[in-house]
């Protein structure tokens, strides 16, 4: 357990479980998978076992859930995960060429689940990302980039390679997939707004 959730992570795991009603701890399974992914970059066997122990369910039950959802990765993943939507609204606006550009620029093969030789990138062909109004839609570490052209895609990859964090179309950027997973686990607060209040 200590490997999958080292140091303060076990406290964070308990705080995640406490979000749900007493006796309904299993509801914390999905955020716990994100927490594990934020530490190791993917959901390892050790993490599956650690989560099972925390929730007092079987490892098979945890793996059944982890393998069902596409945002959990059961194999080591690139530092940056690039998602390119090719569903109809994006395809009509040229998304297929954007996906090809992403694969070519990162050196990831066409399987879509591989990691680039330098370990920096995973490219994933996405189903609808819900940004049809700004197609083609791309996510880099789950932050949106709008109306991406193949040229822009190549430029984004170059900037990531140079250690930059490109500014997304809305919301904060995440410097890596692991950082995005912390936010997916509900552990990163959003910055306050101008019209904020309490």
């Amino acid at each position, binding site marked *: 357990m200590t490997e999958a959730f080292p140091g303060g992570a076990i406290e964070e795991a308990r705080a995640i479980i406490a*979000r*749900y*009603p007493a006796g*309904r701890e*299993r*509801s*914390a*399974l*999905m*955020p716990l998978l*994100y927490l594990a992914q934020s530490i190791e970059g993917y959901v390892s066997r050790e993490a599956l076992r650690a989560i099972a122990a925390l929730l007092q369910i079987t490892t098979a039950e945890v793996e*059944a*859930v982890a393998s*069902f*959802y*596409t*945002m959990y990765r059961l194999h080591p993943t690139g530092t940056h995960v690039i998602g390119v939507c*090719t*569903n*109809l*609204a994006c*395809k*009509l*606006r040229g998304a*297929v060429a954007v*996906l*090809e550009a992403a694969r070519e620029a990162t050196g990831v093969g*066409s399987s879509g689940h591989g990691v680039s030789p330098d370990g920096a990138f995973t490219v994933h062909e*996405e*189903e*609808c*990302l*819900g*940004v*049809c*109004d*700004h*197609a083609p839609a791309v996510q880099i570490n*789950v*932050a*949106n980039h709008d109306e991406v052209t193949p040229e822009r895609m190549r430029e984004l990859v170059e900037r990531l390679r140079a250690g930059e964090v490109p500014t*997304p179309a*809305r*919301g*904060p950027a995440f410097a890596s997939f692991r950082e*995005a997973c912390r*936010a*997916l686990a*509900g552990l*990163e*607060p*959003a*910055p*306050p*707004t*101008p*019209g*904020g*209040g*309490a």
Partner: protein
Amino acid sequence: MALAFERRLTRHWGDPEVVGLDGYLARGGYEGLRRAVSMTPEEIVEAVKASGLRGRGGAGFPTGMKWGFVPRDTGKPTYVVVNFDESEPGTCNNRELVEREPHRLLEGTAIAALAIGCTTAFIYVRGEYLWQALVLERAIREAYGGGFLGPRIAGSDRTVDIVVHRGAGAYICGEETALLNSLEGLRGQPRLRPPFPAVEGLYACPTVVNNVETLMNVPDIIVRGPEWFRELGTDKSPGTKMVTISGKVERPGNYEVPLGTPFRTVLEELAGGVLGGRALKAWTPGGSSTPLLTAEHVDIPLDYESLAAAGSMLGTAAIMVMDETDCIVDAAARMVRFYAVESCGKCTPCREGGWWATRVLDRLEAGFGRADDLPVVRDLGRNILFRAFCALADGTASVITSSLRHFADEYEEHVRLGRCPLGVPHLEEVAS
């Protein structure tokens, strides 16, 4: 027809202050909740019933009736679950509604909680909407600070807590019973109904599952009344509807229109017409699962009844526009592939049929189609429709059947020429 009406859900769009609590309050925010805490649950349900508000997530079920089904005497807790798993291809209005005015969703959710006696509500946000989940969490913190969530909301003795739960990339979780399974920490597979969620939903307790846009209509219904709500829209489809228009148009985007507004008005006035002035070829009225329509249907009013009469559905009012240069077989192959990828695997017609249809459609598009592929595809469509546990499979059938209904010639041309007549590029390598 020039479109002129008082905007409701989008009236503060473009005003960045309204994202925060102070800005929302300064524009009359939480007035609905303030009134709702002094109403009985029955009065709230009656007001929503009288408004005629129908669920905006696709099915169009009357919201007040749904709330009225929740039994009050079971001794179990009740739950409100907000379905913010917006994933139907072409649909993104919930995303922008939340980005621009998150407190309106919290207010509507809290009022729904009061109506069914719920103290803990959940908002299920699709994982890819990471920024929108952060926006909601920030708004929730503000609302607790302002006394609009937590114990003694709006000065009453009532408690309402809201918990944000993120999905992880599964379209099926938009189906309400799959969503409930996912929220319980299970695979997102749909449940047998009955029992319906109103009786046994989350944790086998009485549960209301509502769409984001539906709930965002509720505060105004409480403040301004059901009669005001009915001033826009049609008799059977009252109110306004958020429409997403995308694909080959000049100004893709999310627009609010009174229900019953003709598609032509949305296309020409709001979206600026077909991209580059080309001719309209086909469009989905409510996401990829709703049967395709053509240029002949351009004057159809966008409401539940008119689209049903035309052989399609309002769905999520997600309009994807294809022009004369777009290939229907290519589009159908891509849409069907989506349903194949997203099938949860529970039912054979969907799990196997979707992939079979994808392979045949890809083969047709790549120029390797055979004359007997068309009856195969047609037959697949017929055999998938209504033969699976939930409506996901019907999306596959709907794409196949409607594209063949309107564009059989184009399919036949692919077979005859041994290539796509429109030369649409695509990635998939087809094993010959």
